[in-house]
């Protein structure tokens, strides 16, 4: 079974992060699989791409254990994430994150890069990078564009986690249901609604938004990946991660 699956039905694509036994943590292999699926999607004519996670989590963030003590691997991992967020943002269709479970760090970054996102009140989300001695550089430009520079500063510097209600209140997700059990029906309703818009109008509007809000600045993301890798590879952070991950 592939680490990421893509199904297309009518004008709706569904991209699923499929590594449930590791809470969909982003490894090199998983990021490469996501790249392949998104590349495939770019050749298809759809109105909406739904991004979700298989199993209990949406995405637990970067799988850092495998790149501990491996500076080149860290840079590769973070560059793959940066390039993936750019690819998702520049899709010509609407992107909707259906945040079915925990979305942490880079996982919450994937939610942030989506145009729209829906989750449930008691979900666990957030950017705890600084708590681990890691710099959330790759997600920072997306979060600034999403919730504004003031709020982004308070979220990224405070670290820690938030629930779905807080994520909605500060603007990381756009829609909220009370219970996890309500998510499926509400998201399917939203999918039917969003995919009914005129394809040419969607394309034109997205392209304008990406131009106006700076989303096309790919260089910034690559610099961010390098910065994040540099911080990750400091002896202090490596020691903190070894202790935390038990490696």
């Amino acid at each position, binding site marked *: 079974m592939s680490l990421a699956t893509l199904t297309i039905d009518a004008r709706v694509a569904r991209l699923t992060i499929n590594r449930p036994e590791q809470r969909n943590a982003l490894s090199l292999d998983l990021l490469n699989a996501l790249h392949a699926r998104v590349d495939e999607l770019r050749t298809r004519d759809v109105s909406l791409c739904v991004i979700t996670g298989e199993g209990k989590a949406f995405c637990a963030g970067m799988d850092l254990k495998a790149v501990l003590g491996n500076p080149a691997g860290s840079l590769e991992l973070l560059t793959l994430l940066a390039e993936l967020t750019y690819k998702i943002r520049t899709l010509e269709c609407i992107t909707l994150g259906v945040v079915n479970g925990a979305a942490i760090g880079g996982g919450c970054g994937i939610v942030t890069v989506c145009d*729209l996102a829906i989750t449930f009140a008691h979900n666990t989300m957030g950017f705890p990078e600084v708590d681990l001695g890691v710099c959330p550089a790759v997600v920072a430009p997306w979060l600034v564009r999403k*919730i504004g520079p003031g709020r982004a500063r308070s979220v990224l510097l405070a670290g820690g986690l938030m629930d779905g209600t807080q994520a909605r209140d500060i*603007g990381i997700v756009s829609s909220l249901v009370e219970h996890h059990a309500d998510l499926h029906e509400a998201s399917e309703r939203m999918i039917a609604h969003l995919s009914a818009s005129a*394809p040419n*109008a969607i394309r034109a509007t997205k392209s304008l938004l990406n131009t*106006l*809000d700076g989303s096309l600045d790919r260089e910034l993301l690559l610099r961010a990946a390098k910065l994040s890798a540099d911080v990750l590879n400091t002896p202090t952070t490596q020691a903190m991660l070894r202790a935390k991950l038990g490696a």
Partner: protein
Amino acid sequence: MIRSETRDHVRSISLCRGEKRNALQPAMLDSLLHELRVAASDPAARVVLLLGEGEVFCSGFDMKLVHNDAAALPALLASLSACVRVMRRAPQPVVIAAHGGAIAGGCALLSGGDMVVTDEHAKLGYPVLRLGISPAVNAAGLIAHVGAGIARERMLDTSAITGRDALRVGLAHRCVATPADVLPEALRIAAELAAKPPHALAATKALLASIDRVDADEPFDHGLAVSMSLVGSDQQRERVAALWATPTPTKPAP
């Protein structure tokens, strides 16, 4: 269809087509633009208050007219863009009383408001992508109004939000309980603003305009061009025509 009057330094400009939910026609939007320009250059108008008569503030462009007259949509788009620019750049504060609803072009007008008042159950949003029309025309105004993230969300999600949610995302700045409470609250705010030193308000507005780039025409022009590029497309004509098509019962799939 537009009425303007000044009382206690507040220039009230009303959309007076309440029986049609203040649906905007080209001549009407041109008069609005004219009145906004006059107010912006009149020192006697210390505050501009924009309001709509009837049950809702504004339901957007008159789609029946857009359907019947190919020249209507381009004219409406150009005037809408100009109205938002004039309001954002006016030296005096602009207060908008958005009771009941502000849809599509009506919602876009809110981006010209420094203070937008609505009510808890009002419906606000941009359903126009469904019709093959792009809300791009007001992207620059909306980004300046609510930030890029919320602007993206509201422009791509065609469902309306309530006045309460509009307050949360920054589309409105005050939210009162009922539509009838909106105008009194807007008048109260306008009176408060009219009592403040106009030169300080004007200097502050000009500074904010330069920070959020609404003093530049390029982003507005870009958005207007994108909306214009879709005018008359097959998808647009079919979807707008379908608004008046006789519904036919759908047969179940074999």
